[in-house]
């Protein structure tokens, strides 16, 4: 009973922390993009636009909730929740500092990868349930893309697992006690794996240049074209939660998680900073490339990334065994 209450409380805190973070990460991205494009970005709501995310959230809550007449109502209404669920669940196994987290499973990374791949179910429900041709094309692309990119994503994420010898996320973090032992500094393998991780992350998060399922210049808004108000907000929340989740995972797998100078209680802060570094790296790519076409995306995945990540995994296995 007590442990149930404990998990409930911790889960509640983490969930709310994630939602708060998502709102402010959008502001960070908007400010960062604005600097890249030589503009100022949100500035009017609150000092330096700091209240902008709250204004956005309020606006979305007050929007009319439109359901298309021809939509498959049950599927359409359920989709945002089904989409949001795995995006939030990925934080369940993520430790933010030694012993600080909801549940440090001994197959933590496997859980993370499995759950994050499940978001496609919600996506597909949304696209199918909307009964819109743009949405349908969008989810057709999404299924293709996510199936193609989950394989290299898993292979790349397994490189640190092989180097550590454990699937437990806290073990992987503990295996990188100081700067020199961060897996990104592991000779050759580490850098290549991190590079591949960033690319596959972009694809898994559906961001430009791999955002073909949103593709607003062709498909308007892709699978969420018919969503409005809070349902749209939930989808947006899920997407950003997924982005933050993979950024944290990247920081944990390659950048030494909570390791950093100063006392141990600064750990979560270091972890957050590193995750934001990964996030901004991805954002930087996002705002400097044009979108590529669906067939090119699949070609990159199957002809380049998959063999590359497989070779990387094999090379790591050989190095570890040797």
């Amino acid at each position, binding site marked *: 009973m007590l442990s149930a209450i404990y998990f409930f409380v911790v889960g509640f805190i983490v969930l709310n922390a994630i939602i708060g973070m998502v709102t402010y990460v959008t502001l960070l991205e908007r400010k960062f993009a604005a600097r890249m*494009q030589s503009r100022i970005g949100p500035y009017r709501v609150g000092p330096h636009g700091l209240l902008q995310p709250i204004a956005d959230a309020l606006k979305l809550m007050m929007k009319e909730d439109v359901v298309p007449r021809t939509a498959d109502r049950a599927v359409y209404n359920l989709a945002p929740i089904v989409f949001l669920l795995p995006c939030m669940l990925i934080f369940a196994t993520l430790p933010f500092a030694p012993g600080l987290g909801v549940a440090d499973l001994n197959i933590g990374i496997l859980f993370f990868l499995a759950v994050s791949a499940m978001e496609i179910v919600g996506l597909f429900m949304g696209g199918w349930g909307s009964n819109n041709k743009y949405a349908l094309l969008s989810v057709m692309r999404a299924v293709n893309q996510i199936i193609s990119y989950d394989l290299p994503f898993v292979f790349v994420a397994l490189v640190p697992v092989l180097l550590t010898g454990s699937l437990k996320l806290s073990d992987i973090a503990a295996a990188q006690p100081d700067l020199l032992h961060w897996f990104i500094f592991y000779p050759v393998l580490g850098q290549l794996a991190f590079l591949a991780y960033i690319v596959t992350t972009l694809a898994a998060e559906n961001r430009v240049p791999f955002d073909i399922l949103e593709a607003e*210049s062709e498909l308007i808004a892709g699978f969420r074209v018919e969503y409005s108000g809070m349902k749209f907000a939930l989808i947006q929340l899920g997407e950003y939660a997924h982005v933050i989740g993979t950024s944290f995972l990247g920081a944990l797998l390659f950048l030494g998680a909570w390791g950093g100078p100063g006392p141990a209680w600064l750990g979560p802060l270091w972890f957050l900073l590193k995750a934001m570094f990964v996030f901004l790296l991805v954002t930087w790519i996002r705002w400097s490339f*044009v979108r590529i076409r669906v067939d090119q995306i699949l070609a990159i995945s199957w002809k380049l990334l998959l063999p590359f990540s497989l070779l990387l995994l094999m090379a790591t296995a050989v190095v570890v065994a040797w």
Partner: protein
Amino acid sequence: MDLESRKVLEMGYGGAERLTMNMGPQHPSSHGVFRAILTLEGETVVAVDAVIGYLHRCHEKLGESLTYTQYPSIASKTDYVAAMTSELAYVRAAEIIGKIDVPKRAQYLRVVAAELQRIASHCLWLGTWCLDMGGALGGGATVFLYCIREREDVLDLFEALTGARLLYGLHQVGGVRYDIPSEWAKKCRATMDKIDGRISEFEEMLESNAFFLARTVGIGVASRELAQEVGISGPLLRGSGVNYDIRRAEPYSSYEDFDFKVPVEDAGDCFARYRVRMVEFRESIKIVRQALDGLPAGPISSRPGVKSVGQVRIPKGEAYARVEGARGEVGCYLIADGSAKPYRMKWRGASFSNLALLPHIIPGHKVADVVAIMGSVDPVFGEVDR
């Protein structure tokens, strides 16, 4: 066209499962109000029907009911992205019928205005094209904002010259309405130097970007024969390997005085059209510099002191005047009956003719390429529908 697309095309209509999809008239990348009815086989476009006319404003009828003094400011509304060129075409047609001389200074000022307009128009083209390919939430938006920044500088120059930023009314029958203000030439030169440098930045940014090349090279190929058959003009025609530029073929407004290159690319794909326009940027800058250097003194209009709107009367006759606009040949056919208003007026919009290329080059490409090809054609629907 890849092999798979070719197969799909050969299957013709009635293949497996076809999807008819409406792109427009309200669509983020339709550059105005354009409706393309796409027939899709999976992601591949099998057929495209273009529907136009959503922005029809009776321009030719307006031309008959407004006087030669009034209409130039309305003419700029046909192609609102390159307003100077349609004004110029209209007043030139009237001048040809009336055999009205234009002072050398006015001719040079017209050239400066036309070339600045080409720069502004190409800026908007590059920005929106990248926006189409890269998305409003991605790298495309970055290029778009950079381009808009350069365009603002040119619009500032126009504002100092005419007082307007979009629809100018600079031209009048017999010359131009406004002379350049003091210090304007200096400001203009500085802006040209700035944009010259920025264009190199754009080229560096885009041409070293593998994804940009993947989206443009070999996409939407229009062969030389097709280009001539369909009757496209401007950068599209030159991108397909035809060396034809009205400024060179049939010089007007003293274009023969200036030294400039007419860029020609043979590939005929989106990238070739992009290259042609990028070189045109530079050539336009060159022409503006030359025109400012050699700007003769003298009057700016052979008909100074036009006081009332009905004062300009053109004798009976008819003429077709054409100018090289940012998008191609902009032509105006006027029939004058001796009164203060034309008897009949007809526009030849460059975008309208260029749009005819779409059904020939889109089939066989993916949905994503449709917007890339549309953007490379650079239609302005004010000019298509008029």
